[in-house]
């Protein structure tokens, strides 16, 4: 059995695995001579859409924790309101690592209003009560 993970070689058309359904079609996405994006290997129309999006502008949710003062737990889970560009994930993590919250916090509270000037907020994924009530 071969190892599943292969790093794409330079010049190769990168293979994108479709995650829409368990069929896991292997997509080849490239720009043709007319500058149109072509998706090959998709078993359905949703796969074609997925291939285009993953090729042009892949996005991921930012999911992590931050420090919280006086919370019943020492860390608070947070997420980006919507998915952010994939290549910004590590920059976003750097920003989030320098932020802390103070309990009590309500689920949905905005923790960082405009992450990396993307117009997307980072919000609390849960409510957290204060450990010592003031």
């Amino acid at each position: 059995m071969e190892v599943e993970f292969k790093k794409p070689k330079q010049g190769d058309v990168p293979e994108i695995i479709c995650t829409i359904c368990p069929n896991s079609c292997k997509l080849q996405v490239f720009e043709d001579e007319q500058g149109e994006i072509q998706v090959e290997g998709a078993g359905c129309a949703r796969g074609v859409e997925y291939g285009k999006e993953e090729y042009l502008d892949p996005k991921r949710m930012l999911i992590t924790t931050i420090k919280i003062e006086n919370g019943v737990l020492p860390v608070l889970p947070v997420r980006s309101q919507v998915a952010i560009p994939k290549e910004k994930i590590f920059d976003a993590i750097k920003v989030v690592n320098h932020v802390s919250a103070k309990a009590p916090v309500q689920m949905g509270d905005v923790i960082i209003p405009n992450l990396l000037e993307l117009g997307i907020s980072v919000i609390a994924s849960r409510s957290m009560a204060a450990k010592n009530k003031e």
Partner: protein
Amino acid sequence: MSEIIDTDIAIIGGGPAGLAAALNASKRGARVAIIERDFELGGILQQCIHNGFGLTYFKEELTGPEYAQRFMDLLKETNVQIFLDSMVIDLSADKIITAMNPERGILKIHAKAVILAMGCRERTRGAINVPGMRPAGIYTAGTAQRLINMEGYMPGKRVVILGSGDIGLIMARRLVLEGAKVLVVAEVLPYCSGLVRNFVQCLQDYDIPLYLSHTITDIKGKERVKSVIISKVDENWMPIKGTEKVYECDTVLFSVGLIPENEISLKAGIKLDITNGPTVNEYLETTVPGIFACGNVLQVHDLVDWVTLEAERAGENAYAYSTNTSRGGKLLEPILTVPGENVGYIVPQRIDYLQDSKIVQFSFRPKSPDKNCIIEFVSNEKVFDKRKAKHIIPSEMLIYKIKLNPEEIGEKITINIKKNLKKSKEEA
């Protein structure tokens, strides 16, 4: 002296199953009590901070804590009694629960019906017999998840993960985002056991290699993990000599499966199935009348949405039991369900009532992945229903609602997953 509490329905466990069962039974008018051992409700969802929950049930994508909070908020509107920090130590067949609480001491809860919702726990290194030393730095993936996401500790800096289940994949990404280096994920099976989406977004996105048909054959280090040896395995999972590779690391995570947690069920004399979950009838009732089971304590689910739906049924059925609602005549001998070709197990394990035609929900898992399949429901040596399945894998539970007609059903119902030869030929 122990405090005695009287209720209609007592639910052991306040995770996703317990929450949904409590809401459903309470909505129908039952007095409900939840007994939870942690300091808060929500169970495992509180440490599953990633997104992907609720797509089926809420039609939107939530994180684990958000999914839990929706049910906890609804529970606030009810008069469900909640006992936190309360560890159940005994359950009797006459439905008396004994629990310990640090402030109230010993609690005795007398209930008309009980719902088991204790969830599951992780298989450990010991369960799969990985040889080597026993230094610090070896964790199950879920323990590492709780340490990072709830307790604010990093388990290590250079990590090797065994097992490509979803928790293992998700922890690989989580560790990278928190600054660790994940060297490799090794999987003994020839395919990834987690969802494709998690393979792509947790491993591929971060250039973490997945070695299929590989396992850990040695762990080295005296005080702390120093290195592990990973070897290729043959089709019988036996390591192949000469394929050993050394990985220097300080941490090893095991993501090698989950086991329903049923020690308390055994105390009540409940019979367990090969899954280690209780055997149940079509009402999700165990072998002890009035004790029901739902969620991961019954069968390990891949989606929390299915846990919620199953728990709602348990809540409804427990309520009906507590109000003495008739189910019609009980069969003298139950109809047994039998896992046939490529089927690992089936829930329910038996049908206790079948006077008239009725619809029964079956959930089961295939033993191995396949494409273009026909799922046959067989009784009296005749196929009485069949369904097509384009793609099956052991990590995805199959759920079907099937009409049972007493005239067609004999002593047993067998479920087979067969290859759809016609369809496979067309594609070839």
